[in-house]
């Protein structure tokens, strides 16, 4: 039987506000337990929630970014269930009337084809705290610092047909929220979390029963978890079994999903409008202000890069992967002049160095200004491409600007024809037999043999000779 996989994702993006969604406590990651849990976050008797304006602004920006129907009137509801990391016994979320309605994003697959994935809705809600299971004589410790951190839950349509599409979609949402500056996207710290609803069906059939996969904290694990789950479901169905609708936890160590001890055995959340909060009503003025300074979004920027900088699709995709990198690239172009050259250096030498050191673009010791300065020296023939790599390494190591390094290490290209001629003459003199062989060879062979002389000249000049001039000079000197 041919099976078709159907995947929908629920992505929780923590919004990058300073304070919590309903209280004035800080949201910073990594504070000592319960030091950022105020009376409201703890659900003390008598406290009340007041909505953070910035969280609403961020939702509005997201809505605009995915071309969604922004709901001018949305309502907070209580989702009731008991869990120790949920202080009030209910989570304030949005149910019937979410702030962001139907929208869509376009994903680019590896083969270059594009697909549109529907976003069903996105709503604001509060995060829960954390349970810590280690070291309390068989008890669980509860840290409520995270309780009340604003989340935007982004629910997709079941539009994805493979793990790779799901990952491409998740990456796209990740890219968008980071471009918008509404989420730091840190998956390790849990700022960006994806749950996957996975089912399989014979092609053309009705939707199969789905399992919800949780606890996925990287794109790699997302792909693996879905692939494991798809195989599990197919094996199950092909051996005559049935898929149970349940929540399954992905275990990255074993690379498998396993059933969670049914947390929601009586899955009845008794949603109702939160009487402590009033309907959120957004007027034109609010919306206009929220989206007034929207950044250029990745898809638009990619197309512009192709046109404005004459880049190929691969480079443009890579350079617009995140806003910081794209900004870096454009700053490099402004400082360095040559867009093509800048693209090669940013995606080549710089990306390689960052990768080697495990750094983000924002941490690069070589700023866009510095890289631009280096590229200028390549363009104006002060140094060769090869020497430029040497200068780049020195800049990376903190050696100063390109000009300073070129100056202090004496790397300036030798373009003075008199000086070059001296070196070329010496090389020709020292290699008489090769010169003879060259002169007797046919044109084709000569072209190959020229490399030998160029190499010797470069060696003698410690790489500083201008390769183009060397070539010309050699051709002249070697001519019979």
């Amino acid at each position, binding site marked *: 039987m041919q099976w078709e996989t159907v995947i929908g994702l629920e992505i929780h993006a923590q919004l990058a506000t300073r304070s919590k969604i309903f209280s004035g406590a800080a949201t910073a990651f990594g504070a000592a337990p319960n030091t950022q849990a105020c*009376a409201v976050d*703890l659900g*003390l*008797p008598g406290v009340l929630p007041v909505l953070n304006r910035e969280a609403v602004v961020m939702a509005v920006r997201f809505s605009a970014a995915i071309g969604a129907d922004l709901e001018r009137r949305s309502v907070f509801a209580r989702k009731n269930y008991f869990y*120790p990391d949920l202080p009030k016994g209910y989570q304030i979320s949005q149910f019937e009337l979410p702030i962001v309605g139907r929208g869509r994003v376009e994903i680019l697959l590896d083969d270059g084809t594009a697909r549109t994935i529907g976003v069903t809705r996105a709503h604001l809600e509060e995060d829960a705290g954390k349970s810590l299971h280690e070291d309390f004589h068989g008890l669980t410790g509860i840290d409520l610092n995270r309780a009340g951190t604003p989340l935007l839950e982004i629910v997709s349509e079941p539009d994805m047909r493979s793990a790779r599409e799901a990952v491409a979609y998740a990456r796209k949402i990740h890219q968008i929220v980071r471009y918008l500056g509404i989420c730091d996207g840190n998956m390790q710290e849990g700022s960006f979390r994806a749950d996957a609803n996975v089912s399989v069906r014979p092609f053309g059939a009705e939707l199969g029963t789905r399992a919800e996969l949780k606890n996925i904290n990287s794109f790699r694990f997302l792909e693996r978890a879905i692939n494991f789950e798809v195989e599990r479901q197919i094996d199950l169905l092909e051996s005559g079994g049935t898929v149970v609708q349940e929540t399954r936890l992905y275990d990255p160590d074993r690379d498998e999903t396993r059933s969670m001890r049914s947390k929601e055995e009586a899955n009845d959340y*008794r949603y*109702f409008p939160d009487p402590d909060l009033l309907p959120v009503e957004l007027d034109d003025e609010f919306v206009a202000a929220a989206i007034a300074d929207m950044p250029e979004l990745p898809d638009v920027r990619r197309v512009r890069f192709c046109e404005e900088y004459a880049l190929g699709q691969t480079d443009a995709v890579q350079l617009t992967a995140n806003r910081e990198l794209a900004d870096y690239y454009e700053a490099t172009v402004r400082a360095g002049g040559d867009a093509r050259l800048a693209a090669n250096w940013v995606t080549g030498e710089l990306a390689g160095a960052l990768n080697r050191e495990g750094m983000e673009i924002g941490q690069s010791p070589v700023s866009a200004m510095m890289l631009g300065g280096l590229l200028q020296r390549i363009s104006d023939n002060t140094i060769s491409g090869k020497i430029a790599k040497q200068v780049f390494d020195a800049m990376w190591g903190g050696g100063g600007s390109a000009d300073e390094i070129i100056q202090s290490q004496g790397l300036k290209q030798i373009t003075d024809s008199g000086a070059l001629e001296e070196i070329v003459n010496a090389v020709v003199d020292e290699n008489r037999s090769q010169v003879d062989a060259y002169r007797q060879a046919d044109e084709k062979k000569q072209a190959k043999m020229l490399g030998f002389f160029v190499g010797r000249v470069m060696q003698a000049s410690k790489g500083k000779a201008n390769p183009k001039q060397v070539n010309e000079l050699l051709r002249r000197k070697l001519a019979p």
Partner: protein
Amino acid sequence: MHNKSIMALGAGLRAGDFSSVELTRAFLDRIAQYDGELNCFITLDPERALTSAAAADRLIRSGKAGPLAGIPIAHKDIFCTDGVKTSCGSRMLDNFIAPYDATVVSRLSEAGTVMLGKTNMDEFAMGSSNETSYYGVVRNPWDSSLVPGGSSGGSAASVAARLCVAATGTDTGGSIRQPAALCGITGLKPTYGRVSRYGMIAFASSLDQGGALTRSAEDAAVMLQAMAGFDHRDSTSAQEPVPDYSENLNAPLTGLKIGLPKEYFNEGLDGEVARSVELAVDEYRRLGAEAMEISLPNSELSVATYYVVAPAECSSNLSRFDGVRFGYRCQEPKDLEDLYKRSRSEGFGAEVKRRILIGTYALSAGYYDAYYLKAQQIRHLISDDFRRAFDKVDVIMGPTSPTTAFAIGEKADDPVTMYLSDIYTIAANLAGLPGISIPVRPVAGKPVGLQIIGNYFQEAKLLNVAHRLQQESDWHRALPTGY
């Protein structure tokens, strides 16, 4: 000294006739003398009271004191008071020392009031007789075999017995007005959102409203002045400006249009209580008002509607009492489920559990539309009834409670009969309207309350109407025998 108005006491304090410390001692002495019988207070803190009285005396001497400076009051034990036990009448919070002040508490404290203690109440404000308190029933000063009403029973009885000058209360379905009526005092429930709910332990968030229980409308105006106003910590608090509530207390009532809802004078109403209300209305006619019959056709559904909306909200509001971060925790829980179930079952009393169960049911899958949504729709109809009525009249009058105070134990085992004792007060909560209960002609020595309901944010009008009657009558000055 104990039977004086806030204004008279304030004048005495400012004139130096007596100090706040003396006044506070006098009330503490009365409490010591009478509260053993009445059981109005859950927590007393004489030392703290005298310290703040001394501070108030300094403020008064500095000449910067407002009308409430140095006045001894009591807070219903539903308001969080920093560093003082706040039990909400429940075993669940018997060990709960609130770590912060409710907005109402901090405002009244900034106004210079002296807190004598925290008053007894029905557990989590769920009751109409003060019999559901973990701390025992409060006795009605007019007859100790009778209930004081509820849920603000301790506040009402303590004002009636003059154990404090005034007290705070909360009203979710009548919990200020009904005990005020049964204890022969004045009880004001403001418009929903007029007084901040921050720090007021929630029962039903869309109905709860803090207010005052006082000897008179004049005193209520002074209390409300300090309590009312926008609070940035309460999203549902109104930004409406706060008028001067004392300014127009004496305004003439000539031409005042009074609506008498025919549904409030139905067969459930005690005949003598009805007669007392009619006499009061006659008095208003003499004062130049015009009374007319009106209809609030959906008001008969208010009890049914209320007993869906309030329990639904309470079932969720009370989930935070789980034995984890504060409050009662059962002994040696064997697992998480056991911790939750035993802490909650042992910490909550029968009526609270009953309402949590009803509310849970009304919100549960398959019943939400039939109960919760239906109730919210009828709530709209009830609110529309009032809107139409206020197109025609300025205030609505009727009985606060269908009977005078009933005997302790009389209705305790019959929840539905008990619920019906709030039949006339609940609609104002569903609509969010302000209401006041003032004492009128007693029946067989037992107090009777006249309820006056006003349009949104018309507290000043209610106080004016109430005050004018209190200028013409002495019912509010009557003291229960022995006090």
